[in-house]
């Protein structure tokens, strides 16, 4: 119990003094997750819009697939990305394995279905509401897409934040493709796993606290966005 209390005290000290090692891990975590979220938004938002708006054969299957992929097990994603990036894999020539780029790729694969599925639902609901009115105004499908994206902006941002939350909290995929190399690919979740197994609870707790704060901040941001949207009738 005394060790535990001391570990918490040490964790708080590390945070309060902006410990260099801790700051480096947090910084890399945020860089990787933000880059992955940006990539997932670039792929997932148009993909979600396409599935919501376009009429094509197999649309129902596409919706089923995207929704199912929201629950992708991170270790499976890690394994697939590992196989793609390993020397024997099709992308092995790029030498990306055990680099932050590999971790960004893995997290992108993991959260793109989340962004796409939530975007699809948002845009489909808006389309249902707007469809007749837009057609009555002479608005065609191509012009309707940016209208729906803009009017759904708060919900789409929420979808991206949900993806970001998943990315920051994820450990299975990044530890496989990143390797948890000190000063290179060590992020908060992989560091927590390592330090806990080593018995260095102070750093693990410090990182855990920061991760918790990030999770709470993301949820607060989502709630704030929702409240703003409802207050100004943009929801």
């Amino acid at each position, binding site marked *: 119990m005394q060790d535990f209390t001391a570990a918490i005290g040490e964790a708080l000290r590390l945070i309060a003094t902006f410990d260099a090692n801790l700051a480096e891990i947090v910084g890399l975590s945020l860089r990787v997750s933000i880059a992955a979220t940006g990539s997932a938004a670039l792929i997932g938002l148009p993909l979600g819009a396409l599935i919501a708006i376009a009429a094509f054969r197999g649309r129902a299957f596409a919706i089923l697939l995207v929704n199912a992929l929201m629950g992708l097990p991170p270790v499976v994603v890690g394994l697939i990305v590992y196989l793609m990036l390993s020397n024997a894999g099709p992308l092995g020539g790029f030498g990306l394995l055990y680099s932050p780029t590999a971790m960004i790729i893995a997290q992108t694969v993991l959260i793109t279905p989340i962004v796409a599925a939530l975007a699809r639902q948002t845009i489909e609901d808006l389309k249902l509401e707007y469809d*007749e009115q837009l057609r*009555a*105004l002479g608005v065609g499908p191509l012009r309707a897409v940016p209208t729906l994206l803009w009017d759904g902006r708060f919900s789409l941002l929420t979808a991206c934040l949900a993806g970001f939350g998943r990315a920051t909290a994820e450990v299975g995929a990044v530890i496989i493709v990143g390797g948890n190399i000190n000063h290179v690919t060590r992020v908060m979740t992989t560091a927590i796993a390592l330090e806990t197994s080593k018995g260095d609870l102070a750093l693990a707790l410090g990182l855990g606290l920061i991760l918790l704060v990030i999770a709470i901040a993301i949820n607060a941001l989502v709630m704030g966005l929702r409240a703003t949207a409802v207050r100004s009738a943009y929801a």
Partner: protein
Amino acid sequence: MPEVDASNGRNAGAVLPIRGEGLVFERGGRRLLDNIDIEIGGAGTLVVIGPNGAGKSLLVRVLAGLVVPTVGKVTWAGAAPDRRRAPRIGFVFQRPVLLRRSVLANIAYALAAAGVARSEHGRRAHAALERARLTHLAHAPARVLSGGEQQLVSIARALAMGPEILILDEPTSNLDPAATIAIEGLVGIARSEGTRVVLITHDLGQARRLADEVAFLHRGRLIERAPSAAFLARPETAEAQAFMRGEIVL
């Protein structure tokens, strides 16, 4: 892009007369429109009445090109409906659908969709709001307005595009008397400026106040159409007579 006639602010490309020939619409084995022939041209206000489920809303949607009939064809000024001329039909739904932006931006969006030059958006949007007495709400988020104000914005948006015809699908249902008066006033202005008006209503008082002509639908069929004075004094068909007496018409 539709051309804009600078003299009256209306888009080039006429839609009147709107003609429906042999219109049939079936869904789930039910015939909701049954062989309707109708032509809407000229001027004034045509009020469409009939019991619930008679096919009134469906008919105007078919005529506006929003729904494709199972059988029959619709023409606008002799040609098949096309998206380019859609803004010349101002369509106002029973439940106004406003975009998630300000009142002014809603109207500007419609003007952009109609191909009106961007430099004209501000002037025409403000003119439309002034006519609807909504200038003070120009920068308010459209969807926080009251039901009556939203419907007025919806009509102002339709009129801003300079339509040849304004179709209103029960625009005042569930609105208070003050909102109803404001909406009827705006519709009256449009009519007096030469816009053809088609109005669906359940309110016989409203029909008496606004109609130049009345069309009566029953079970998907257009069974009577006559000048309002004649229809309101004495409808010809037994169904219309029963409806006007306030009886439940099956």
